[in-house]
């Protein structure tokens, strides 16, 4: 099995992880695009090794309010998958999906119905991400139900950060940003495998 140390990953391993982000997010973006019936573009995935101190600033600053959807992963790949979007983007997405049933008020809290729609969006697109990852690596991935929180980015990112804290002083993120032409609908996918799962993923791809 490929020996993986987060601090000592080589370029080849980074490239493979970036490609995983590419394929996973590519499928997820397609699913999203079909759901909202609009063209959604994806940026080139980034693989970042970040210090915890920097992590909070990832999505518009630690105090930026974001909608976070988190699934825990089991079986061949252990870890977490997160889908994050800014609150304004989540509002737009709900409006596109629910039409007249969505609230017009920008600053209002989400209704039960809107929260449920957001959770379903998260479910479908993380599902698309994970199923393509599973096909690519030929590994079984069992995801939990999606958990959702709307809060400060720093607080939400503390959850995966703590998982990384157990194995390293840094966090490795496979991060993909997407947006539609008007940048109304944008967000981030973050895949957070455990250290052992990194080895398994790389091994399954012949590294």
């Amino acid at each position: 099995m490929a020996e993986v140390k987060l601090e000592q990953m080589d370029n080849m391993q980074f490239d493979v992880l970036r490609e995983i982000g590419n394929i996973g997010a590519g499928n997820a973006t397609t699913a999203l695009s079909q759901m909202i019936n609009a063209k959604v573009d994806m940026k080139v995935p980034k693989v970042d090794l970040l210090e915890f101190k920097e992590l909070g600033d990832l999505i518009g600053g630690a105090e930026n309010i974001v909608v976070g959807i988190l699934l825990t992963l089991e079986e061949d790949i252990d870890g977490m998958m997160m889908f994050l979007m800014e609150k304004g983007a989540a509002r737009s997405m709900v409006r596109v999906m629910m039409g007249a049933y969505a609230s017009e008020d920008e600053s209002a809290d989400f209704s039960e119905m809107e929260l449920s729609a957001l959770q379903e969006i998260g479910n479908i697109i993380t599902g698309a991400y994970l199923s393509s990852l599973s096909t690519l690596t030929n590994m079984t991935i069992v995801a939990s139900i999606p958990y959702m929180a709307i809060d400060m980015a720093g607080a939400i990112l503390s959850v995966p950060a703590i998982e990384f804290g157990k194995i390293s002083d840094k966090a490795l993120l496979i991060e993909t940003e997407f947006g539609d032409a008007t940048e109304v609908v944008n967000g981030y996918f973050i895949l957070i495998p455990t250290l052992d799962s990194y080895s398994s993923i790389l091994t399954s791809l012949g590294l």
Partner: protein
Amino acid sequence: MGTMVKVGMADLNVCLPPDAITTLGLGSCVGVVLYDPTHKISGMVHVMLPDSTKIRNNENVAKFADTGIEELLRKILALGASRSALVSKIAGGAQMFAFRTDNEMLKVGSRNVDAVKAKLAELKIPVLAEDTGLNYGRTIEFYPDTGNLLIKSVGKPTKTI
């Protein structure tokens, strides 16, 4: 007006008046303030995990409740804080996602709070006030001049403890 000293995740720092010290977006992590009210010397640590002895890779002492509090104590004593006058205030340790599972791994917030309190009790530093648990994030600011700890959360009024 003083400046605002920032403490990141798994980080610690010290602060004297007229400055204030802050950490942004505490989730399941816990922010611990140690404070000497007579000399107005303070410090803050943002801990992520309860116990350094359970983890192999622990070069960053500020990451853990046990080693983080010890290091912060050392730093504020070096600044001239009086050991017997020290008090503390703590905040954070939320459970950000409502996991429907018995998996202890995901309930790290409450374990962090317990570990911080155990360490402070061991060091005989009283906890004057706390705002911990529940399910939302907190930004905290400590003012050594007054000894006030401000807690800001999304959609909630600012709280002073």
